[in-house]
């Protein structure tokens, strides 16, 4: 058989169960690839020893015909998830060297189901970024390159840029990500991978370093829709340690993959057609409409007039919550502490000045400003009200349609450094994904084609809260119609 790293998660799972390959073989094959992929900078920490020990334990179980649904599958974990005894940095100098004394609920469920941890994946600092250029541990490079021969380094998207790059480059069978404004779906879209942000409350946030608590959700990035369904089944579920976690059964999402979409009503929101959007994105979107119509769906034009206000709402709500969440980094209990200070106040101020990068500081300052006396009503309260109206708009739309189809991103992967000068331009990357976070909806990006420069483009579907099954159905239909999109060459191993 071909190398274990070429198998999808589902194929690997089946091959492991059938003893055609061992977890140790698969794990070693991935570790060897990671070792040669330093140029991509996808991993902050590689846990080779731990991975081999977990693989051996899985092989022992598999030999006896035992093991969980992910038994022996090597995964990459976004460095926002606390992993017991393994450095968890959130991409920040502030948490360099931080060794959590506990395991996040989501990762503990992956290990419960038999998965193997290859290491911790790079990301934008505290998940604040759309290009993986804000990480203290350096940029992640997209394994895809333009076909123009220029070999420019491109962004893998963000904030889950290590997760998307590692998945696209076959440096893990699948990865975890988190999505606060698009941080799973946007990186998946620009790396030709599949990313799913489930309904807010579907996955526990316990043990995930907090960014904006009313928006953060964990989810998978994987090579295909089925693999995402397998991952989400293990990641999802009620957790009493997260008071916003919802107690309802976790369906068998994989069963929905490949199920008929006949008769589903698909909404196409006219407000997602942006001025200056590349024609290739428009054309791809139209193709997606045709594919779903051909598969038996009914297509409906819908209107979501408040769409343009979603990003401004987000850039009040998210920094406000972040400024509060990140107040905990004080140089006293854990994390970085400045070496120079004269009193407790300068200890705090110098620690935070050194420990946080520019984008994180910018957002903390915005958040502090919009929450400060005299501005709270004008900014934060107003944003929460507009959020409610955006939410209501979706509730209304979902009385008429089952799924909403949009592009995932307004452009393909851009060059590292191309957009880092203007924060607002960078924020616009999440224009199609951020509404899903504000309304708490499940959404997913699926690769649907390549642009003129050979770079992947994704389409996004949004579904009703807790209707991930219909989401997976629709995503699988698009995946099937789009066909295989190829994969990047291993240029980085040279």
């Amino acid at each position, binding site marked *: 058989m071909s190398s274990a790293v070429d198998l999808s998660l589902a194929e690997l799972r089946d091959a492991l169960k059938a003893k055609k390959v061992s977890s140790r073989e698969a794990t070693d094959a991935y570790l060897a690839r990671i070792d040669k992929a330093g140029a991509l900078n996808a991993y902050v920490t590689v846990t080779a020893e731990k991975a081999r020990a977990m693989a051996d334990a899985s092989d022992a179980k598999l030999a006896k015909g035992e093991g969980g649904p992910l038994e022996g599958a090597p995964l990459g974990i976004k460095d926002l998830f606390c992993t017991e005894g393994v450095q968890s940095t959130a991409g920040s100098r502030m948490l360099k060297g*931080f*060794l959590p*004394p*506990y395991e996040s609920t989501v990762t503990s469920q992956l290990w419960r189901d038999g998965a193997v941890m290859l290491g911790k994946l790079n990301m934008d600092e505290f998940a604040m970024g759309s290009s993986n250029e804000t990480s203290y541990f350096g940029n992640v490079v997209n394994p895809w390159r333009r076909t123009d021969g220029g070999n420019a380094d491109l962004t893998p998207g963000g904030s889950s840029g290590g997760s998307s790059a590692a998945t696209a480059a076959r440096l893990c069978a699948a990865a975890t990500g988190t999505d606060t404004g698009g941080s799973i779906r946007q990186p998946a879209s620009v790396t030709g991978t599949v990313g799913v942000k489930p309904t*807010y*409350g579907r996955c526990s946030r316990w043990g995930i370093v907090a960014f904006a608590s*009313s928006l953060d959700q964990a989810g998978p990035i994987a090579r295909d829709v089925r693999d995402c369904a397998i991952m989400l089944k293990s990641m999802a579920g009620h957790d*009493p340690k997260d*008071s*916003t976690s*919802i107690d309802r059964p976790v369906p068998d999402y994989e069963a929905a993959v490949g199920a008929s979409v006949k008769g589903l009503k698909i909404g196409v929101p006219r407000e997602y057609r942006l001025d200056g959007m590349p024609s290739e994105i428009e054309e791809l979107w139209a193709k997606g409409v045709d594919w779903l119509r051909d598969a038996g769906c009914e297509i409906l034009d819908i209107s979501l007039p*408040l769409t*343009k*206000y979603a990003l*401004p*709402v987000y*850039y*009040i709500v998210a920094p406000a919550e972040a400024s509060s969440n990140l107040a905990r980094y*004080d*140089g*006293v*209990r*854990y*994390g*970085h*502490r400045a070496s120079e*200070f*004269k*009193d*407790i*106040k*300068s*200890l*705090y*101020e*110098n620690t*935070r*000045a050194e420990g946080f990068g520019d984008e994180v*500081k*910018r957002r*903390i*300052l915005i958040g*502090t*400003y919009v929450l*400060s006396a005299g501005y709270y009503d004008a*900014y934060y309260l*107003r*944003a*929460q*009200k*507009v*959020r*409610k*109206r955006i*939410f209501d708009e979706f509730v209304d739309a979902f009385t008429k349609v089952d799924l909403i189809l949009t592009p995932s991103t307004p452009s393909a992967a851009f060059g590292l450094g191309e957009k880092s000068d*203007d*924060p*607002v331009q960078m924020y616009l990357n999440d224009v199609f994904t951020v509404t899903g976070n*504000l309304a*708490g909806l499940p959404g997913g990006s699926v690769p649907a084609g390549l642009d003129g420069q050979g770079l992947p483009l994704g389409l996004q579907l949004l579904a009703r809260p807790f209707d991930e099954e219909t989401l997976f159905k629709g995503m699988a239909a698009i995946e099937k119609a789009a066909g295989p999109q190829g994969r990047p060459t291993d240029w980085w191993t040279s």
Partner: protein
Amino acid sequence: MSVDKETVRKVARLARIAVPEDRLQPLAGELSGILNWIEQLNEVDVEGVDAMASTVDVGLPMRPDTTATGPTGGGQPDRVVSNAPKTEDHFFVVPKVVE
């Protein structure tokens, strides 16, 4: 709305982030750029709309009033201070706070 250098100084103090004098003006420009873009929310009619803090429509769950076990439980001071930059006998050490 534009923010000036003095506002940045005040906000940075509230946020407990030391900002060097020569960064105040550039930051005022960056923050003003973001805030001006956010201003468009004033176009939206929010009369009579409830503010939404969470999309989860449930009250806070109750739990028995007992000591938790496991990682959130008590009796594990070693683990609590295991990542602290400076400790002494399970206490966090900070510069003198009260004169």
